[in-house]
């Protein structure tokens, strides 16, 4: 079952189209990664999915309901972890989570139990009475998450929840997301950290210029998108003539020289990287080091958008 379905979804600001005819299906129980360079339209898309932005054209169904008609009941079952910290720094962690729990209609013992569960889940229960402004960056991020999951949402949107945290806290947050997902929460996750997306996402959608330009599992995207092999070769006594000669070899689609290092893209349908290396060795080229890169999400992203994920 799809927990999110959009059809020809458009968001326009005067002349600017921020989201352009997006058809997106997110399945219940998966962790869906949404990637895209800055200004690609990710936040606008999420804004429409959580009901804070009005849809210009098209339709959005979340949890089987039309967002334009059942916004209130949909909001009851969704959680949202914004990129910026959205809690009251002068209040304790406990008071903050209580506040957000009440906004979702939790009351009395049910609220207290839910707050305890959320704070324990994020590892903040022992520090619940501390004023949140005194928390470390990682703890603040975890509190941001606790505020979003206190009402046990069926669908959780996380917009770059690990920005600016140390590796240990990041691992803890990623582990929390896995646990949440294991407990049945569907997660929509946006991040600039490719390794995070690779680590937790079942499927990934890539956006650019307001369009959804690719969607699928990471393996599918790599297989379908990346048609070339990548290698970097360090050569002693590298010359301009040698680099030009390698560039002219059939199958080499890209060759960039940086001092003694060549970055090479090879079309495997014409020549594999191994065959290229054998050829260079046979020509007595003095190869010092070789690095054959396995295509990954970063490669997919670069191939599709022409930009690095963190640009």
């Amino acid at each position: 079952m799809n927990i999110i379905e959009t059809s020809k979804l458009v968001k326009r600001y005067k002349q600017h189209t921020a989201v352009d005819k997006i058809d997106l299906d997110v399945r219940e129980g998966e962790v869906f990664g949404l990637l895209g360079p800055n200004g690609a339209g990710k936040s606008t898309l999420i804004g429409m999915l959580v009901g804070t932005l009005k849809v210009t054209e098209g339709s959005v169904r979340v949890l089987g309901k039309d967002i334009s008609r059942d916004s209130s009941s949909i909001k009851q079952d969704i959680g949202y972890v914004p990129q910026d910290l959205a809690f009251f720094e002068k209040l304790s962690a406990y008071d903050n989570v209580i506040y957000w729990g009440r906004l979702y209609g939790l009351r009395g013992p049910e609220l207290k139990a839910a707050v305890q569960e959320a704070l324990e889940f994020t590892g903040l229960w022992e520090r619940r009475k501390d004023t949140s402004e005194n928390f470390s960056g990682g703890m603040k991020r975890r509190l941001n998450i606790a505020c979003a999951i206190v009402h046990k949402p069926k669908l959780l949107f996380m917009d770059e929840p690990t920005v600016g945290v140390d590796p240990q806290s990041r691992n803890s947050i990623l582990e929390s997301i896995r646990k949440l997902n294991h407990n049945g929460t569907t997660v929509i996750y946006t991040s600039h950290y490719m390794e995070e997306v690779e680590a937790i996402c079942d499927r990934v959608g890539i956006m650019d210029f307001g369009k959804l330009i690719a969607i699928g599992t990471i393996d599918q995207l790599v297989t379908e998108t990346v048609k070339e092999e990548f290698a970097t070769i360090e050569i002693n006594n590298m010359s301009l003539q040698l680099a030009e000669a390698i560039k002219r070899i059939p199958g080499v689609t890209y060759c960039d020289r940086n001092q003694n290092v060549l970055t090479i893209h090879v079309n495997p349908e014409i020549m594999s990287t191994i065959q290229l290396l054998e050829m260079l060795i046979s020509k007595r080229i003095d190869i010092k080091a070789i690095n054959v890169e396995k295509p990954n999400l970063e490669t997919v992203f670069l191939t599709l958008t022409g930009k690095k994920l963190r640009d």
Partner: protein
Amino acid sequence: MINIYYQLVHSLKCIFKDTKPLISKILTFSLVILVLGSAFSDMFDTNIEPVKVGILNEDKGALSTGIIQVLEPLGTLDPEAEATQAEEDEENTEDENATADVSIGEWMKVYNVESEEDGRALACDDEVADENRISAMIHFPEGFTDKVTENADKSDGEATPITIKTGRSTQVDTTVVKCVFDTFTNSLNADFAVQEHFDGKSLPQDLDIENGYTQMETDAEATPDAMSYYAIAMLMMVLLYGAEYGCNSIADDYLGVIGERIKTTPIKRYQQYIGKMLGMVIATTLQGIFIVLLTGLVYGAKWGSNYLALLAIIFSMSAASVTLGACLCMITRNGARGQAMVSLIVIACTFLAGGFVKMDMGALKYISPNYYAQTAMFNSIYNGDTGIALQNIGILWLFVIGASAIAILMSRRKRA
């Protein structure tokens, strides 16, 4: 309803958990009241003009007539006369004063008064022009001369009182009247004693005139002293600083990230707005009540006895301030800019309402909400006029409605 209540509680919690700025604000204003109240007390009490005093002579005897001749009355004051009456009288008798009794004339201008009612009216009624207002009335009761003479013949004669009734005068005015008249009657008593001595009579111990001071009965209390004035003026400033809460709240909960986050929850926007605003109004009101208690109990500032009216004025002013802050933030669409405007407006409004220096800013004062709250408060405390107080409270609520309407319009403009 419960959502509004929870928003209200949350709002109060946010304000009162952040203790440092709160304590700093209250302490600062408490000190400012103390400093201004002490520093300007002379300005409030000092009257460089001679004090106007009325004389009512119901005795018509030789002694009272003699005393009055020495005091050189300038004329007769009528409570319903135009403002210029006293000035004309003074001009007409200027030369005579210069040669007659320069020392008393420098301190007191004495006028005849027709009756006790007229004297009371000249001293206490609002309708009397300031130029005609007297600070005190010297009353020679019927039979005064006879009583002094009778007592002079008795060995255990009692002092015969001249009644001096003080009105709605400042402390300095009252002190001037008391000093001048005490000195005058002491000299008179000394004259009697010397005369008796040279006449060869024994000197009776208590043969003298004394001054019996009483406060005139009036519906109104005295005008505020400096401490009471600045307690009210600074209370208004504290309350107007409630605009900061309104501005911050809109910046955070509507324009900021928390606002965006709240939009993803099922709570209705109006519930959030009403709850938060009410919380901030109550927080501001509580701060106002604290200032009232502190200045009343520690500095002795007068707050009157109509506590309900006092609370209503504080609450209304708090509501006006908070909505003003919200409105400014919505207009500027930027918390920092809104905050800067609030700081400027608080100072400007306090100044225009005469909060720093007691002065009339003419029509400009009407743009300051402080003016309406101050007017309501002064009328409630000093004139007991709840009608004017209610009228000004009403104006404050019109202000609340106006500011809220502008804030809502601006928010809709953004959405459009």
